[in-house]
């Protein structure tokens, strides 16, 4: 990006009354806004000198029309001064810190010099004299304690301190004393006698359908201020009693305070006629919906699209399928040169409504919209150096994003592929980084608008560059779920294909070597690997035998690839997404890794279709003997629990030190029922060997053995708040049980399996556990979101310097070498790469 002007800094300060008057282009003095004819009144809040909000009107101050004039400040002169509520606390501190007679800081000059530079300390010490009602070290005056009553009243020994008096005291404070406090503004500026009136462009009135005008909240508030100000003036002039004047004065103070901030504690918020609290200046700025977070830190963008996503395994992971409808709307500026001029001419001739078309042509004389009528002319006048805003088309680079954008892989760069139908399409292998599924998820698409931005996106954000996660240095993109089961089916022992079958499998993926008549699955898989690739690792299927049989492993967990040939082992998750992919990426780079993902996932799906793969309810059937064994386990556990309860009731149970007898009992019961479930799980596993659920669990495709335990064995103890279920009715969980029943089945133990079916009470307990985890998830998202916001905010300024030190806010060195070794976690495996050429044994990912 070419930066032509750069803002060097932004200073903050407070305006004096004089400055406010000087800045003002109109003195506002009447609370009326419009006359009978609906024209704004001069000196009213909609004074035409304050700016333009209606089309066709010129500004009386600068002459600009709507959009040209940004508006001008006005001012209101207050009959009596008031406190600036934002500084109420500081005013109190300063009142206490200065002498009531000579207005010097209540510290001797020597002391001041001693503490010079420590602003906070000086303010603190000088206030102490007032609090203890001491004497001024300069003039010897006795000080009187000053009380502050929120939000804006001050009392000196029960006497109300008038704002005018406060200002008089402040005016006498010397600049030198203020410098000791580090204050850069005159304190009398914190007492307002003139307030600025915001330009009407900031508080535009809107015309409703009924041609009624509806004013902005701030205008309403300013009307209130002007009304009271006027009444106060009238009353003073007519010599009204002091009491009435002070009441009105206080009211003026209230209105001005709420004009600044309508959320001050201690005073009722100013309300609209409808009873809704007004949104005044502070409310506009603060919070999630405020100016800062809504409009300044986050901005709306053009050249973006959003719609529902759906999967397309035939796209490369780098691609994104864009509906034609979107391609007709999104554009990218392309500069005309000798090489592309002919093509751009053709594109312009297509017009804005036919796909590879264009919307605008930008010439040095301005921007012209391409229409049916003028497209021929535009083609003729098109010359080198012009810019054409053409539709996005195949091959363009776009940024693709899914919220919540929790990490940088939530925004990656894809290559456009314009496709029919109305959804954005992506390769299912990239679902993981986006955390996307296709149950109605929507995603956003952004078209970068300059060559520089496009290049940057392509180099840094391309999907293939993001295969390795910077969080844990391993691939985050790769084959999953069905891809894993599919590849398992292909690469396991005894999978053989005739040449015809093999051709069906690899059609459009790789070429089959000529001549061979029969192929094993491993041979087909090997076609995807580079010819000089070597790797050995223990896969997920490894059962941790004491002596590893290596290539001759019974469960084929020992994966060995030599010279690009899979010699032994089954390709499961570790092969689709884990070490194997990681190794390919570090050794051969992103292009090879990308192709591996594209090809392996496609091949796996073909394998899946060849063999067929399903989970049936009968697969969770256990033979009679096994069911009896599980029943025995349940019986045994329940008896054991009853025994423990009996012991407890007799007061003879074992007690864990530091816990009550009841708590100990619960612990023992939980442990007992836990073993029961584990026992059932082991039986279930033993009798369901080789079924689809087990394959998926063991290869890492989906699910765990625990899921199978629950389906075939038993569901197990349900818990709420980490305990057995003990809530519900008085002294019992459900009316099905006797009061005080602590037995397993009355406290949420589910002995049935999902296959066998749950009894009504079991079902209810299971639902209780399920509800708790739902609530838990809902709370967790909020908590972790806020934690992440805080983390990001605290760390976002840290960056690596050319000397590989990490420095942050204000150039502070946070680390002398990033991560103590200067290694990028994302590229960490380059290191192991060189040290281990043979790659004899790699650790596996988690």
């Amino acid at each position, binding site marked *: 990006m070419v930066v032509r002007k750069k803002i060097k800094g932004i200073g903050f300060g407070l305006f004096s009354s004089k400055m406010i008057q000087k800045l003002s282009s109109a003195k506002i003095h009447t609370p009326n806004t419009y006359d009978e004819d609906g024209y704004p009144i001069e000196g009213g809040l909609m004074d035409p000198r304050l700016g333009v909000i209606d089309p066709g009107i010129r500004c009386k101050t600068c002459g600009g029309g709507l959009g040209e004039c940004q508006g001008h400040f006005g001012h209101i002169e207050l009959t009596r001064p008031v406190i600036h509520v934002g500084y109420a606390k500081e005013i109190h501190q300063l009142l206490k810190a200065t002498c009531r007679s000579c207005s010097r800081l209540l510290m001797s000059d020597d002391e001041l010099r001693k503490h010079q530079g420590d602003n906070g300390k000086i303010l603190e010490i000088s206030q102490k004299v007032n609090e203890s009602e001491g004497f001024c070290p300069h003039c010897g005056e006795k000080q009187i304690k000053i009380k502050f009553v929120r939000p804006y009243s001050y009392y000196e020994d029960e006497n109300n301190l008038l704002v005018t008096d406060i200002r008089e005291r402040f005016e006498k404070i010397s600049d030198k004393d203020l410098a000791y406090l580090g204050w850069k503004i005159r304190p009398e500026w914190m007492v307002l006698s003139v307030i600025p009136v915001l330009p009407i462009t900031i508080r535009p009135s809107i015309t409703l359908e009924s041609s009624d005008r509806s004013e902005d909240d701030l205008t309403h508030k300013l009307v209130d201020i002007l009304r009271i100000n006027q009444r106060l003036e009238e009353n003073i002039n007519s010599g009204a009693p002091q009491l009435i004047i002070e009441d009105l004065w206080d009211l003026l103070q209230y209105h001005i305070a709420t004009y600044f901030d309508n959320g001050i504690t201690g005073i009722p918020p100013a309300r609209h006629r409808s009873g809704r609290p007004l949104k005044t200046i502070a409310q506009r*700025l603060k919070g999630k919906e405020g100016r800062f977070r809504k409009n300044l830190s986050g901005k709306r963008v053009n050249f973006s699209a959003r719609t529902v996503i759906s999967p397309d395994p035939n796209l490369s992971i780098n691609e994104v399928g864009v509906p034609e409808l979107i391609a007709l709307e999104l554009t990218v500026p392309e500069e005309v040169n000798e090489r592309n001029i002919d093509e751009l001419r053709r594109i312009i001739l297509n017009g804005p409504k036919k796909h590879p078309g264009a919307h605008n042509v930008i010439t040095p004389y301005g921007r012209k919209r391409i229409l049916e009528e003028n497209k021929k002319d535009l083609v003729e006048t098109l010359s080198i150096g012009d810019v054409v805003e053409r539709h996005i088309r195949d091959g363009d680079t776009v940024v693709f994003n899914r919220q919540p954008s929790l990490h940088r892989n939530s925004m990656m760069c894809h290559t456009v592929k314009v496709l029919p139908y109305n959804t954005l399409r992506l390769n299912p292998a990239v679902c993981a980084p986006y955390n996307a599924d296709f149950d109605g998820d929507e995603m956003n698409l952004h078209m970068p608008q300059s060559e520089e931005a496009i290049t940057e996106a392509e180099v840094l954000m391309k999907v293939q560059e993001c295969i390795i996660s910077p969080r844990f240095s391993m691939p985050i993109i790769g084959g999953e779920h069905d891809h894993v089961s599919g590849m398992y089916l292909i690469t396991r022992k005894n999978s053989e294909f005739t040449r015809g079958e093999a051709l069906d499998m690899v059609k459009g993926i790789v070429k089959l070597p000529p001549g061979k008549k029969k192929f094993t699955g491993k041979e087909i898989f090997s076609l995807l690997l580079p010819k000089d690739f070597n790797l050995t690792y223990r896969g997920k299927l490894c059962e941790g035998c004491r002596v590893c049989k290596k290539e001759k492993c019974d469960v084929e967990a020992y994966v060995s690839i030599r010279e690009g040939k899979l010699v032994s082992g089954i390709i499961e998750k570790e092969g689709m997404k884990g070490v194997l992919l990681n190794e390919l990426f570090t050794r051969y780079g992103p292009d090879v890794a990308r192709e591996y993902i594209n090809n392996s996932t496609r091949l796996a799906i073909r394998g899946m279709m060849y063999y067929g793969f399903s989970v049936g309810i009968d697969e969770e059937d256990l033979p009679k003997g096994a069911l009896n064994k599980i029943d025995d386990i349940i019986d045994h556990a329940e008896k054991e629990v009853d025994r423990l309860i009996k012991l407890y009731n007799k007061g003879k149970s074992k007690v864990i030190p530091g816990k009550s007898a009841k708590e100990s009992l619960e612990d023992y019961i939980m442990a007992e029922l836990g073993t029961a479930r584990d026992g059932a799980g082991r039986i279930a596993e033993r009798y369901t060997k080789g079924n689809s659920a087990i394959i998926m669990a063991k290869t890492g495709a989906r699910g765990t053995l625990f899921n199978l335990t629950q389906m075939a064995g038993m569901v197990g103890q349900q818990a709420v708040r980490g305990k057995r279920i003990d809530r519900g009715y008085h002294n019992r969980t459900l009316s099905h049980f006797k009061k005080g029943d602590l037995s397993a089945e009355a406290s949420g133990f589910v002995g049935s399996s999902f296959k066998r079916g749950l009894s009504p009470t079991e079902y209810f307990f299971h639902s209780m556990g399920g509800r708790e985890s739902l609530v838990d998830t809902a709370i967790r998202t909020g908590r972790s979101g806020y934690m992440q916001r805080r983390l990001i905010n605290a760390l976002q300024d840290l960056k690596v310097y050319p000397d590989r030190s990490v420095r942050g806010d204000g150039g*502070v060195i946070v680390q002398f070498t990033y991560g103590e070794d200067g290694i990028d976690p994302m590229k960490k495996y*380059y290191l192991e790469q060189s040290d281990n050429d043979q790659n004899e044994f790699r650790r596996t990912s988690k």
Partner: protein
Amino acid sequence: MNLEELPNSVKSRLDKMDAKRRYKLLQNYKKALITPGEAVGTIAAQSIGEPGTQMTLRTFHYAGVAELSVPLGLPRLIEIIDAKRTPKNCIMVIFIEEKHSKDKEFVDDIANGLRERFLPDACEIDIDVKSKKLVIKTSNEEAKGILERLTEEKMRGNRLVIKKESLSDLKKLKEKLDKKRLGGIKGINRVFVRELDGEYVIYTEGSNLKGVLGIKGIDARRTTTNDILQIYETLGIEAARNAIVKEALGVLEDQNLDVDIRHIMLVADQMTVSGEIQAVGRQGISGTKESVLARAAFEETEKHILNAALYGEVDLLEGVAENIIVGQPIPIGTGTVELAVRNQGDKKKK
């Protein structure tokens, strides 16, 4: 990278390699280095924040000892990052000097001395409402001494009777006595001795590192607490930094989440650069940033703007948040590089 700076052990290994292999090694090392300008802070924050959604919320797990419960998962992680003064359920793991660590009696002895004991642990204190008397029974000599000193009354055998005018006085006295410490270390509520890798280790509920380190026979080098602030106060900021890393890593590992240690170290380093532990949040790092706009955009918008005006602060727009606000390129990543390009049409300036 200057090869001369490498430690000798590494250098000798490098020398032994053949030239080709050494060259490849160095090439790969260079490849693995972090790129200057990289927004490592943001990456670290994302790497820790993103798995937060996958963490469990309410887990009270058991750390080695079934009787002890420590918050784990997301609440614990937030606790660490908040640099809370009093974490829920702190725990100490106290190791014993190796020569004694296998001696159960020795360890038990230390363990028994650790627990904070109060008067009611050693005696029975009852209020006799009828006769407005406080009756204390004890056989503990230590308690007797303290009681006599405290109440200026003489023990009669194992009994002490105190008479007071009113019941409320008696109650006040009883409360005072209840809180009187007999011995042990402040803050240590419960003590457990467990065997760990062949030696006896003391686990405590409640933590007081300063107190425990002063006890003879314990191995100060291995003894730890999970209260990071206590570590800071007794062992200093470097130790606290390491404690943050250790604790945060422990939480993530326990939840089976794989996060590179570099990310956690960066957070810990940022929390401790100032020399004291700063929380991640408005009272800590985010509230003390240089830039007014960055602070205002985070939390407490009005406070920061009003203060900026009072002290005449100037925002120099050096950070990320500020430049986004004013619409300028951010000085991080590719924005770090400043390059001036003269357009062909521009006239040359002298």
